[in-house]
């Protein structure tokens, strides 16, 4: 019996020591990165994680951090699995992170209620809960630069333009192929509204997680229904398969448009020349020509301090990761300005985000001129509903195919407000916003 | 030894009557037009060479196989398609040629499982195992311990039966059948694979069961000595048909039986 007790005590001591977390020195800013370099979505997760990591490392190497304070970076592997993501969060929480990037809709949803309690802002850049754009109800959540609803309205604007006016859509059929889940289903209400408003017909083609690589039935349906345009909300292995299948049924690739998460190089590359003409939205520049990215090359990649292969630097999703890190770095910088403190906390960075503004000039200053559109987040509007542009696959790489397209805010806003109110009413006892607003610095 | 009882038995009421039963699998005939009866309180043996259809006969009796033709009446009730659990409810218990114990359970649990039908505290009492359910468990445990004592297997009560030697497994299986307090006990080769000593023990248990509890027994056995000693009446099957039926001495001298066992061509 005593032995059993002793054993139990030993086991507990072991557990305790394993979980003992070293106290975080206060002379650095802790930015954890939830990433997924494993699992079925690793293909998209790896470049994003690399981009995020490398930009922050570059700031450390080149500038000694942000405002002179070193950034402590720690990756935590989620495998795109919500449970593991929450585990990461709980573990990282103790080290006082100033911001969290969940990088999965599921994890974001799990963290949204916790953010206000734990005082850690969440940056879900162009994913997560669209309704969280409403800063009055979601003071701790930020999802710039655009929501999925914005994205859909931009795609329809583009389609309208190509058809010679949005009213020309009347009587046409538009197909929507999507990842069966919250992410892919979210745009449907707006799509239905727009279909009513503009008089076009929609056809839905869901793809379940198990069927991501087996879409021949969906595309046969497309062949039967002959939609004039196809819109895709895909992720992971669903994207390259869809592109290949579209080519297989001779669907005109220049009438096939994906959201910004369907625009990785690896999504189009397996189909190669067959994918020529395929369009996707994008919010960041592609390529390594930007000075800041050259700095990453110089200070990080060339010195062997990165996991990135040289030829992958500057790819679309890599640059998406860079953009994500720029937003964080700018928010931290803002927070330092507002509070006058160098080692900022999560609460400070929340204020930093609420006053975030990156003008074209500022982008240039960062070394990313023309990389992304000007971006502004306010107290009430945590998204900004910014413009995106269309990029097109030329057989080997992405090229810019349109100007910046602004979303149809009038169509999106009512849905957004409704969704935000609904979330708050359903979650009884949702805290009222108590955080004061700062003026833009 | 049992001869006087034989005539006595013939006068008792019929517990089970098999009438003109035929059974076939696909094209293979296992039983053809077999009729016999088992009377209350007797020990009835079913013998015959390998493949004679003895086990099939038992399977028909306790509802595991359904004969294509013929009728079976038990306690005066005739049922055409009896499910095995209905046979059990009616009071037919059974042991098997190749021990069919619940290998993962202890000897005690195996025998307790034989009491399943007798236990009737509902599911919700079972959940909390308190009051009526616990009392019922103890009451039945008492009966099971009697059987354990009777079979002299107290020492292996809590041993998983899969690990027991064959002879003891056979005994536990008998215990499980006895736990059902059956009216009719079917024993399929209860002594197969046993040494002389074990056979003697088993014979004594069978006789004791018959005498003390008054249980009617039908048994299949290959050991002719055992059969002739134990049974009141014998029915002989060969190639699925009945070739003889009567008291052991009569059967022993029956020409058809002798040729069947010696393999004389028909």
């Amino acid at each position: 019996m005593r032995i059993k007790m002793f054993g139990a005590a030993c086991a507990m001591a072991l557990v305790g020591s394993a979980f003992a977390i070293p106290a975080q020195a206060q002379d650095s800013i802790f930015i954890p990165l939830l990433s997924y370099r494993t699992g079925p979505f690793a293909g998209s997760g790896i470049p994003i994680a690399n981009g995020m990591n490398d930009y922050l490392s570059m700031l450390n190497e080149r500038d000694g951090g942000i405002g002179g304070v070193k950034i402590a970076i720690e990756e935590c592997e989620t495998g795109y699995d919500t449970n593991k993501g929450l585990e990461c969060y709980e573990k990282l929480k103790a080290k006082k992170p100033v911001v969290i990037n969940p990088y999965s809709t599921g994890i974001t949803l799990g963290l949204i209620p916790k953010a206000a309690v734990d005082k850690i802002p969440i940056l879900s850049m162009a994913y997560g809960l669209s309704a969280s754009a409403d800063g009055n109800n979601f003071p701790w959540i930020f999802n710039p630069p655009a929501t999925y609803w914005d994205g859909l309205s931009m795609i329809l604007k583009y389609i309208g333009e190509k058809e010679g006016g949005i009213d020309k859509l009347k009587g046409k059929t538009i197909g929507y192929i999507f990842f069966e889940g919250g992410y892919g289903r979210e745009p449907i209400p707006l799509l239905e509204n727009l279909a009513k408003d503009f008089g076009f017909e929609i056809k839905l083609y869901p793809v379940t997680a198990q069927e991501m690589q087996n879409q021949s039935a969906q595309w046969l349906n497309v062949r039967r229904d002959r939609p004039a345009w196809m819109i895709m909300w895909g992720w992971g292995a669903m994207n390259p398969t869809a592109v290949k299948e579209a080519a297989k049924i001779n669907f005109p690739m220049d009438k096939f448009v994906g959201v910004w998460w369907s625009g990785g190089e690896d999504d189009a590359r397996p189909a190669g020349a067959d994918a020529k003409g395929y369009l996707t939205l994008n919010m960041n520049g592609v390529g390594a020509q930007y000075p800041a990215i050259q700095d990453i090359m110089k200070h990080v990649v060339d010195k062997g301090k990165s996991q990135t292969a040289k030829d992958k630097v500057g790819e679309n999703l890599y640059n998406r990761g860079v953009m994500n890190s720029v937003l964080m770095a700018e928010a931290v910088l803002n927070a330092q300005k507002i509070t006058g403190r160098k080692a900022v906390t999560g609460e400070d960075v929340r204020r930093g985000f609420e006053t975030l503004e990156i003008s074209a000039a500022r982008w240039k200053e960062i070394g990313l001129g023309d990389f992304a559109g000007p971006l502004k987040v306010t107290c009430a509007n945590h998204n900004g509903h910014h413009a995106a542009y269309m990029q097109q696959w030329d057989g080997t790489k992405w090229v810019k195919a349109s100007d910046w397209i602004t979303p149809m805010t009038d169509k999106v806003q009512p849905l957004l407000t409704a969704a935000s109110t609904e979330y708050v009413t359903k979650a009884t006892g949702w805290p009222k916003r108590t955080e004061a607003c700062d003026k833009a610095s | 030894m049992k001869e006087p009882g034989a005539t006595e038995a013939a006068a008792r009421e019929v517990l089970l009557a098999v009438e003109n039963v035929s059974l076939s699998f696909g094209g293979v005939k296992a039983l053809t037009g077999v009729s016999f009866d088992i009377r209350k309180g007797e020990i009835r043996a079913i013998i015959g060479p390998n493949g004679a259809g003895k086990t099939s006969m038992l399977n028909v009796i306790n509802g595991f196989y359904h004969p294509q033709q013929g009728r079976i009446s038990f306690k005066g009730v005739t049922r055409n398609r009896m499910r095995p659990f209905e046979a059990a409810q009616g009071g037919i218990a059974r042991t098997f040629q190749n021990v069919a114990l619940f290998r993962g359970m202890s000897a005690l649990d195996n025998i307790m499982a034989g009491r399943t039908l007798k236990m009737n505290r509902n599911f919700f009492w079972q959940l909390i195992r308190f009051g009526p359910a616990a009392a019922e468990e103890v009451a039945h445990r008492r009966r099971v311990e009697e059987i354990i004592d009777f079979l002299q297997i107290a020492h292996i009560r809590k041993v998983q039966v899969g690990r027991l030697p064959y002879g003891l497994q056979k005994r536990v299986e008998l215990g499980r059948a006895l736990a059902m307090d059956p009216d009719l006990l079917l024993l399929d080769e209860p002594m197969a694979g046993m040494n002389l000593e074990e056979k003697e023990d088993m014979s004594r248990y069978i006789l004791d069961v018959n005498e003390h509890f008054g249980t009617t027994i039908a048994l299949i056995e290959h050991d002719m000595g055992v059969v002739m000693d134990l049974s009141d009446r014998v029915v002989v099957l060969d190639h699925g048909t009945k070739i003889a039926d009567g008291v052991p001495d009569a059967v022993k001298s029956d020409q058809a039986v002798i040729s069947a066992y010696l393999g004389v061509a028909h």
Partner: protein
Amino acid sequence: MNILYRVFIDPFMQMGQAPDLLVQTLWEGLVAGVLYALIALGFVLIFKASGVFNFAQGIMVVFAALTLVGLHALLRKWGVSSGMVAAYLALAITIVVMFALAWCIERAILRPLVNQPDIILFMATFGLTYFLVGLGELVFGGEPKSMITEDLGLPRGAIEIKMLGGFVSLQKIDIAAAVIASVMVTSLALFFQKTRIGRALRAVADSHKAALSVGISLEQVWVVVWFAAGIVALTTGIMWGARSSVSFALEIVAFKALPVLVLGGLTSIPGAIVGGLIIGIGEKLGEFYWGPLLGSGIEAWFAYLIALIFLLVRPQGLFGERIIERI
């Protein structure tokens, strides 16, 4: 009434109105079925010989394809100038790797676990799955890779046949898949019919003990069978990889083989093939003609439904041996 019409009449009218689409659907079903059958074949081979329900077959597909593509890239980097040479060299090395894998599995898993209950062996293959996922990602990385279709000399593009008032498009790679699959099945059948080791395998499948008693080495048979399953996995990996890309998401195709397997019977090679075709074609027809009634996307469970209905009629599968209960 309307529902009945939409379920029982409308789909058939559609078939009649657009026969070219019907033919196309059947073809897609056939191709998918061939690939399902290939995965199921890997399962059956192993189940027959070692009684292991090998869940790792799915990851073996990924692992084999990754090894092939990874080695190809490596060889090119090391200066093999011709893609074709590199591809076939990589193919040869991959085959060796699959053999080594089979040998290791026999040594590390099968031999120590011989005579354990089915469920334990089943579980062990999960351990194997975890291990191979980790190993594969560690060595080759998690990024999706393109299959080296051209370098392997596999055809690209499609043949379009004008027929029945429309067109039917047959992907050359799909035709190749069907041909290679049938060649593979035939040669496996020949191998098991004609060679000594093949006869040994059949003996083992019937009874381990009997095989041992006539001097057949179980270990040898197991290595051969797992190796054969590895080759089947490699073929499957190449074909699926060519259809989309080579990544760990491919692992889920193993779930596609399960209904095929029970439909055909766990121990029957013809069952795996016929089952694969039934599931493949049934699933595509179901999704295409009846799926829209339920808002599409029913493929995820439709195959299981088909299998379940078959099982309720024949609990041992189409070609499985009839289970006669004895006591």
